[in-house]
């Protein structure tokens, strides 16, 4: 039962994958687990599907853990996935969303990297693919997307933490999502969750021009961060990636936007100012709890603004 699962603790990949099965068992008519591919080291890439039925509904894509060392993000993802399952039929917003849309949630987007953080190097960020001609391992899976790929906001050096990879979608972990979203055709919202600088970002990251939907995305981000702050007063900044943080080429949300997903956001979860990527597990529940209203704001907005 999920009641025996400690949401306030960090977990290994095996524990998380076992928990997914328990979640599916506990909510068989709502949650299923699908495999969208395999990682470089042949680990399954699992996605939780929340659906109340109906073929080919519009959908929401959520992902956590694309950067392996950001442990707070899969931990928040687990709490959030459980919350979605538990609130269906109770919370009017969650119920309304799932009565019309499906939610796809990839809790561990970079399982090879995540497993590596548990066994060899807690601070590993990238995938675990080898790079021809270099002794350095791995590609930054958030510089590997076909959106401004290869520009100055990423690195061509395989030893860099922001190495973009040899070509766009070279990483299986990225390609699997690309194929899934393209194949689905009705994904209306993409939210990718990271840590730790308290930001809510939207496209673009690879160019300074504002997206045509800038004003709407900005207003929505403003509301989301305001509701997020209501719980513990956590202050977020928001805006386009390039204006708010830095120029970043080849990111997932830019790819999503350029491929027809109007609502594309990237969260940078809380920073206590003391721990960075090593946020203590006591912070998991507060982080997830404060993030929930913001996620819900965005999902409800997408439900109410079909396109």
């Amino acid at each position, binding site marked *: 039962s999920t009641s025996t699962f400690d949401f306030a*603790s960090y977990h290994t990949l095996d524990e998380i994958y076992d928990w997914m099965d328990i979640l599916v068992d506990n909510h068989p008519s709502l949650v299923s687990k699908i495999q969208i591919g395999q990682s470089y080291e042949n680990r399954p890439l699992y996605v939780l599907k929340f659906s109340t039925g109906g073929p080919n509904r519009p959908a929401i894509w959520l992902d956590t853990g694309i950067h392996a060392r950001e442990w707070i993000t899969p931990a928040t993802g687990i709490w959030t996935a459980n919350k979605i399952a538990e609130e269906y039929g109770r919370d009017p917003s969650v119920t309304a969303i799932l009565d019309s849309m499906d939610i796809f949630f990839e809790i561990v987007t970079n399982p090879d990297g995540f497993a590596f953080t548990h066994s060899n190097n807690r601070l590993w960020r990238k995938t675990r693919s080898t790079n021809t001609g270099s002794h350095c391992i791995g590609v930054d899976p958030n510089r590997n997307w076909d959106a401004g790929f290869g520009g100055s906001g990423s690195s061509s050096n395989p030893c860099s933490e922001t190495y973009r990879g040899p070509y766009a979608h070279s990483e299986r972990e990225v390609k699997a999502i690309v194929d899934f979203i393209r194949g689905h055709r009705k994904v209306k919202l993409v939210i990718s969750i990271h840590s730790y600088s308290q930001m809510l970002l939207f496209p673009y990251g690879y160019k300074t021009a504002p997206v045509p939907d800038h004003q709407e995305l900005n207003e929505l981000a403003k509301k989301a961060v305001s509701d997020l702050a209501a719980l513990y007063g956590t202050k977020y900044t928001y805006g386009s990636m390039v204006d708010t943080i830095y120029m970043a080429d080849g990111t997932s949300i830019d790819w999503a936007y350029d491929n027809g997903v109007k609502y594309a956001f990237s969260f940078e979860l809380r920073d206590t100012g003391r721990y960075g990527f*090593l946020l203590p*597990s006591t912070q998991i529940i507060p982080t997830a709890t404060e993030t929930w209203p913001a996620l819900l704001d965005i999902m409800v907005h997408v439900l109410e603004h079909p396109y």
Partner: protein
Amino acid sequence: EKLFVGDQVLHIMASNEEHITLLRVLGEQEELQLDFWRHPTSPGHPVDLQVPFPSLQAVKIFLEVNNISYSIMIEDVQELLNEEKKTMKKSRRVER
């Protein structure tokens, strides 16, 4: 398993564009094995930099010589990792 004994994370405040440039140049020195947890972007935005123990002295001198202010965000990375491991083990032992 890679250990991070004595590694520190420095919280750096760059107050002008020159500082930003200097921090970028610092990060390119591969022998120092630095890892930006938060990259230098623009003046006023904090930069967090993980510095391996053997590079600490050189980095701190560099910052001080160039009048770039910093504080220590994490005193010893390995101590935090040990604590994290202990907490995970304890959580597994507890019967809920």
